[in-house]
Structures are given as C-alpha cells and as structure tokens.
C-alpha cells in the first residue's frame, strides 16, 4: 500500500499547525484526529473484514465511559493505568458481543450489531451506571507521569494535540502492518470469499472475531481520547446515529484504503462545521442535518467509492477494482 503524497503533505501540515498558535484549530483538529482513529478501526472491520457493523459506537462509548468512571472525581487519573485498562475493557466487550454476532452474516450482522449497541445505549441511559441520560463529567484529564515527573501536560491543548497526533499515526502504522501480515491477508480474503477460505482450511470465524475485537479495542482508544478532550460523556456517543456517522466518514473517504478513513473523517467534520455554521447560513444552520442527509444520499448514489476512489479514478482512467 503506497502512501499518497497528500497524506505526507497532510501529516506535515498537521505537525506544524500548532505553530499558528490557534487553540480553536488545534481543538478542531484534535477532534478530527480522534474520529480518524475511530474511522480507521471501523475500516479494519468493514473495509477489510467485510463486517458491516452499525454498532461500532458502542465500543467508542465504552472507552469514553471507562475513563470517566475510572477517574477520581476531581483529580487526574494515571494515563499509564487507565489507557490500557479502557482499551482492554472495550476489547473485552467486543469479545463478548463478537462471540454472539460473528456467526451472523449479511443483513443479520448489521441488525444484531445495531441492536447490541442500542442495548448498551439503554444501559447507560436508563440506569445510574453512568449518570443516566445526563452523562458524566471528567474534570481532570489523565496525567502522563514518568518517575514522578510530568511527561506531558494533557490539559495544555498543544500537548494533547501532539499526543492525539502520535496515537493517530501509531494506529495507522499498526493497522498497516497488521493488514500486510499473514493474518491481514487472510482477513481480506475472508471478506472476498469466505467459503473458499474455509475450504482451504482457514477457520474463518476466528479471523472475523479477531478483527472485531481489535476494531473494538481501537474504537475504545478513540473514545478514551474523546472523553479526555471534551471532559464530558453521555449516552449519545453510543447511539446508532453515531455509528452511522462514522460509517459515513468511511464511505466519504473511501473504504478499504485505510488512509481513506482519515480523509473521510476530515471531510465529514469539516462539512458538518460548514453546514452548521450560523455565520454562513444564519437561522437555517440549525437544520444542517437536512443538507447533510441530502449529501449522504448523493454520495452513496454517485460516488460510493469515496473521495480517495475518485482521486484514483482521476489518476488512472482504467477502472480500479474496488468495493
């Protein structure tokens, strides 16, 4: 998988942005990069594994709630402790749900993932487990200490920004490595022709389950960062609207191309910012979901392989083989 020039240029741009000193843009980009991690985790599942999950936000939400619940009320928790723990919790949940859903195929899979995510939504919404529908506050971001000294001060936007950036790059390269490995090749093949993989001796279900758990853990990672950034979690981040939104980012950017997930996250959030801006659209801005909905319909009808797919077509007039 070659990394296109735009990504390298983009990465340099992201790395240099804090020099502008704009806190607004740092926070916006932090938000986008967190969602890029979320989208990449889903790309592993959908784009490479062929498992269309409409409930991926459940793991994102669990990662977010984990840090909110693990943090002492007004003091920072330890990053070294809570970060792996939150990931483990999200992955463990993905294992439990995965065992129940991975035998389902096609439409069933979509619907059961949706249903399980809704179950978690109601669990957090109706019970006192996570503060109910009001949600929870995270008053202090976790601290990153080494031998007693603070490595990074996550309360500072710049430090948080670079942590998120580093993690986004880390997740990207991790997934790229995994996808190029024997496991990754087998997973992609299971998506293309599961029956043939079975008759060749691969226990396809275990590959799907592994992908599900890995994707869930990485989504939890994104949720953890999101909770840290906004200092607030509520059940809406577990909702299927949220799950559909991240799917939308994938299709907008282009599935099965890993960097498409990153592109999609950027495009989607920026589009949302534009449509909901009352500077541009005045009182109509509060109905931004209307043009967003129209946009989604048009993309699915006209450009289902996303922005990166269009870019590829523009470079090579010969039709590319894609999904």
């Amino acid at each position: 998988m070659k990394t296109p020039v735009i990504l390298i240029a983009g990465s340099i741009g992201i790395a240099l942005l804090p020099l502008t000193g704009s806190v607004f843009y740092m926070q916006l980009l932090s938000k986008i990069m967190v969602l890029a991690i979320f989208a990449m985790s889903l790309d592993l599942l959908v784009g490479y594994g062929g498992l269309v999950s409409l409930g991926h936000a459940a793991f994102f939400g669990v990662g977010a709630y984990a840090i909110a619940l693990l943090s002492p009320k007004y003091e920072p928790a330890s990053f070294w402790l809570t970060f792996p723990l939150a990931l483990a919790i999200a992955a463990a949940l993905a294992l439990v749900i995965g065992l129940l859903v991975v035998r389902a195929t096609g439409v069933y899979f979509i619907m059961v993932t949706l249903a399980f995510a809704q179950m978690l939504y109601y669990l957090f919404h109706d019970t006192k487990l996570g503060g109910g529908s009001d949600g929870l506050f995270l008053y202090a971001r976790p601290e990153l200490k080494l031998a007693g000294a603070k490595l990074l001060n996550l309360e500072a936007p710049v430090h948080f920004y670079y942590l998120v950036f580093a993690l986004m790059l880390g997740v990207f390269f991790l997934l790229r490595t995994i996808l190029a490995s024997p496991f990754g090749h087998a997973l992609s093949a299971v998506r293309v022709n599961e029956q043939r993989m079975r008759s060749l001796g691969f226990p396809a279900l275990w590959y799907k389950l592994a992908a599900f758990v890995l994707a869930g853990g990485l989504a939890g990672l994104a949720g953890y960062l999101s909770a840290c950034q906004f200092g607030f979690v509520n059940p809406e981040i577990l909702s299927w609207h949220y799950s559909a939104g991240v799917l939308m980012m994938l299709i907008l950017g282009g599935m099965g191309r890993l960097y498409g997930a990153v592109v999609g996250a950027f495009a989607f959030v920026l589009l949302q910012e534009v449509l909901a801006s009352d500077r541009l659209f005045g009182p109509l801005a509060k109905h931004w979901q209307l043009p967003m909905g129209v946009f989604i319909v048009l993309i699915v009808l006209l450009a289902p392989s996303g922005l990166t797919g269009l870019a590829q077509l523009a470079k090579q007039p010969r039709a590319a083989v894609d999904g």
Partner: protein
Amino acid sequence: MELLIQLLNGIQYGLLLFLLASGLTLIFGILGVLNLAHGSFYMVGAYLAFWLTERTGSLWVAIPLGLAIVFLLGLLLERGLFSRLYHRDHLHQVLLTFGLILIFEELRSVLLGDDVHGVPVPALLSQSIPLTETLSYPIYRLFISGVCLAIAAGMYAVIQKTKIGMMIRAGSTNREMVQSLGINIGLLYTLVFAVGVTLAGLAGMIAAPVSSVFPGMGNQIIIICFVVAIIGGIGSIKGALVAALMIGIADTVGVVLLPEFSGVAVYLLMAVVLLWRPQGLFKVA
C-alpha cells in the same frame, strides 16, 4: 387483574410492532432492501394523523387521507430512489436510508416544528370496557389490536391465496423467471414497497392517540422492529408475528416488574434467541 391489563397492553403493543415489522420484513424479504428509514414513515403517519385531524376535525377522515399520502410518497420514493438500491450492497442501502432519516426528521422540523402533540381518541371509541369494579380497559386499544389482526389476516390471505401473492412469492426467489413470464416486476416491486411503507404509516396513525406524536419517534421504534425481524427471521411474516408478540409482552410486563432494565430486556431476549438459533426462529428457506 392489573396484570391482565398489562398483558392486554403488551399484546396491543406487540401487534402494533407486528404491523410495522411486517412492512419492513416484506420489503426486505421480497425487494432485498434494508430500509432504515421505515421508522420515518411511522413518524410521518403519526404527524399526518395529528395535522389532518386538526384540519378536518376527525381521525376517521384523517386516516384514509393520510394513508393515501403515505402510499403516494412510497410510490414516488421507490421510483426515484429505492429502485436504484436493489443491486447495491447492504452497506450502501443502510447509509442511503440513514441519509433519508435525517432528511425526513429535518423536513418535519421545518414544516411542523419540534413540539410534542397529542391526538384525541375519536368519540366513537373513547369508552372503556369495565373489567372489575374499579378497573376498565380502553376500547381504543382493543381497536388498535383489532386493526392489526385484520391486517395480518388480510396479508396472509393475499400472499397465500391470490395470484398477486403468488407473484410476490415467486418474485422473491426468482426475479428473472417472473419477468420472463411477462409480469412487470418493476411495477410489482413498486407496489410492494408502497404497501410496506403504508403499513408503517398506518401503524403511526392508529398509534398516535395512545403514544402521542413526538420528534424521533420513528428512530426509537425502528430498532425494536429490527429486533422483531431478527428474532422472527427476516422475510418471515409468521416469525414477525410471533416475535412481535413476544417482545410486546416482555417489554410491557418488564416495565412493570423491572423498570430500570426494561429497555435492556428486549435485547437480552434477542441475545438468547441468537445463541440458540443464529438465523432467527423461523428461517425462510
């Protein structure tokens, strides 16, 4: 006796779910389209019930008018949009219909606002049947159950006993063959779709007086519909009926017995069923 009332409520809720889920499962089973926006038609039905009853003064006038509007809407959407989805994979169907949900919700917000509304029960059905000295059961709820049962019987009759039903059953398994027999499958699919969403609209209209009319009502109920379809087996109307009743009763009785976990109960039921039968209770061959 209170349990009897809850049981009756549960059956009524279940039958209403069946009305909704049957449209969903019909559209998916025959057209192969997963329509996330099915709940939006439920919402449209409910809001039409409110708006038309206000304008015409009578729910009895509002219902046929509303159904005609929803049917027309279904026809237009099928021709213009859904017919392009028949050969697309489920992910695209999911995303496109999700976009539709956003459009429906915002259009409703723009046209009719975000307030919660009530629809008055028509005078004819506003009495209650006395069960004991102190408790009685509203006739309107029995009416809802009755309508749903009548529709269920009608669907069974049409699909199993009529020529159109035979075409529908054939069309779901072998589209090309049906086409080569000279039957206009495009028209058939359009009709099936329009009828399917009209069933959702009908559910919304008759439920409006008891469940009130509020933003997001479609999204709330679509998930339960999916659970009904999963448990019952997608494409099986019989399965939808059994599953809907199971869920209706479990949910309603559950709210009374375990209020905090009532929302979760339905999904636990689904998990148990899936462990036992991954393809739902009634697999469609």
